[in-house]
């Protein structure tokens, strides 16, 4: 059987997190959505299906067939790349059927004859064809639709992942005057991780997993559930509240609550980040802070595809695209979206939406130093962390730049009008 993990048009509702990443590369809990899907799918030949402009990048990143039409010549297990499996165990499926959640396909086994009947080269038409014609069973699970879903799901995913990883105990260095509050069975410190004096790890509300090479500096407090990725550093005195997930090689200081940091994100200094998703190679300047609760305690709305959308949640922070940088003292409004590769400097009440690649300086959107210079900066930043720059990534960035040109120009025009 062939297994196709696909990205549908839902990637647009997950911007800015998906400009140069596929939906299944999003992080939640201990790892990516793809890692979680791979843990539950049966044995078989795996292929990926993604939007065109990101195809070369995915082919480079994963040693898997990408957009290979030969997959549509056999029995096929289709798996939605936005599915966040829980600890329900491996998929067991032998008859032709679709499993759905809130009307969306989660996964489904489609027999060769049905595949050939509905495959005409268009993945979206194929998916709607099988959805309408194959027996469908609704199931309670998790599927990411909007960026804020990740924040809602993260605490429970953190707990599930601790069970899935199945490890506990202290293998790394744990200083004699560091402390564990709560059940020590809910703590795992991997070999090569180092816990300095006066660190407090509190597992009362959930497990804590500290991965290889991570270092927790003196007087930091970490509440579970929490995952700290490989070689990530938690700076002295940091206040890591419950429900956080930090990828690999992050630098985290200040106060952080119920947030997800992609690998290589940097928040070295003080400042509060809550209910937020911070992209790869983002750098938050000292004292950068976001609001995650409105003063009137009403639902937070977020700009999505150019329109404000009610998130249905009282607590929603910021969603910050890869490579974006903020100045010292930046204060983000509740429910802010900052796109890919923005440069944002502090000043007054900030807008709730920053188009990708925008520069926001002295309370105005303006043309920055141009895409080439932003790319050169990104190369420097990645080189400092020994990460290779990929031509395929640059291609995806350039496509994203063109995609977002109109909204960027519009923001600059509006900004100039209001500042006159």
């Amino acid at each position, binding site marked *: 059987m062939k297994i196709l993990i696909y990205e549908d048009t839902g990637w647009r509702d997950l911007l800015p997190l998906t400009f140069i990443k596929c939906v299944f590369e999003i992080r939640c809990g201990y790892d990516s959505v793809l890692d979680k899907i791979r843990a539950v799918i049966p044995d078989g030949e795996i292929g990926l299906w993604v939007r065109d402009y990101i195809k070369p990048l995915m082919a480079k990143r994963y040693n898997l067939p990408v957009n290979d039409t030969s997959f549509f010549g056999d029995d096929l297990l289709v798996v939605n790349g936005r599915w966040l499996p829980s600890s329900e165990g491996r998929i067991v499926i032998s008859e032709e059927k679709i499993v759905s959640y809130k009307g969306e396909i989660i996964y489904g086994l489609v027999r060769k004859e049905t595949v050939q009947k509905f495959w005409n080269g268009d993945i979206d038409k194929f998916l709607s064809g099988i959805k309408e014609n194959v027996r469908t069973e609704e199931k309670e699970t998790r599927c990411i639709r909007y960026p804020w879903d990740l924040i809602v799901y993260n605490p429970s995913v953190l707990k599930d992942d601790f069970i899935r990883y199945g490890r506990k105990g202290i293998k790394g260095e744990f200083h004699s005057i560091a402390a564990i509050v709560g059940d020590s069975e809910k703590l795992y410190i991997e070999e090569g991780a180092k816990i300095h004096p006066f660190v407090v790890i509190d597992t009362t509300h959930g497990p804590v997993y500290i991965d290889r090479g991570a270092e927790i500096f003196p007087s930091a407090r970490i509440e579970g559930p929490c995952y700290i990725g490989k070689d990530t550093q938690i700076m002295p005195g940091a206040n890591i509240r419950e429900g956080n997930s930090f990828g690999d090689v992050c630098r985290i200081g200040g106060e952080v609550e119920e947030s997800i940091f992609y690998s290589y994100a940097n928040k070295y200094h003080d400042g509060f980040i809550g209910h937020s998703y911070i992209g790869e190679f983002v750098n938050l300047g000292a004292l950068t802070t976001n609001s995650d609760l409105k003063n009137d305690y009403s639902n937070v709305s977020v700009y999505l595809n150019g329109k404000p959308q009610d998130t249905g949640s009282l607590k929603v922070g910021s969603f910050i695209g890869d490579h974006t940088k903020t100045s010292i003292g930046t204060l983000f409004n509740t429910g802010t979206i900052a796109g890919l590769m923005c440069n944002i*400097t502090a000043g007054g009440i900030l807008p709730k939406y920053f188009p990708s690649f925008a*520069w926001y*300086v*002295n309370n*105005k959107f*303006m*043309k*920055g*130093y*141009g895409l*080439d*210079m932003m790319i050169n900066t990104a190369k420097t930043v990645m080189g400092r962390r020994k990460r290779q720059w990929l031509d395929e990534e640059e291609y995806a960035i350039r496509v994203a730049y063109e995609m977002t040109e109109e909204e960027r120009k519009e923001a*600059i025009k509006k900004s*100039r009008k209001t500042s006159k």
Partner: protein
Amino acid sequence: MDYKEIEKRVKKVTSEVLGIDDEKITPESRFVEDLGAESVQSLELVAAFEDEFDIEMEEDAALQVKTVGKAVEFIQRHLEGK
């Protein structure tokens, strides 16, 4: 628009953005070294020139312009191409 008129308006804009008396601005003045433009002010100058002359400038090319005189020539080329 002739060169002199463009130069007059470039000096006026530069004076407003950088807070410098326009009599101190000459065609040879370098934005960074002589007039003290910070990196952020360079971006503001580009925006202000675009507004003043109703033109669109490529960021990379505009930021390569180092002196007031070169800015006048750069803008004149843009106006001629309009």
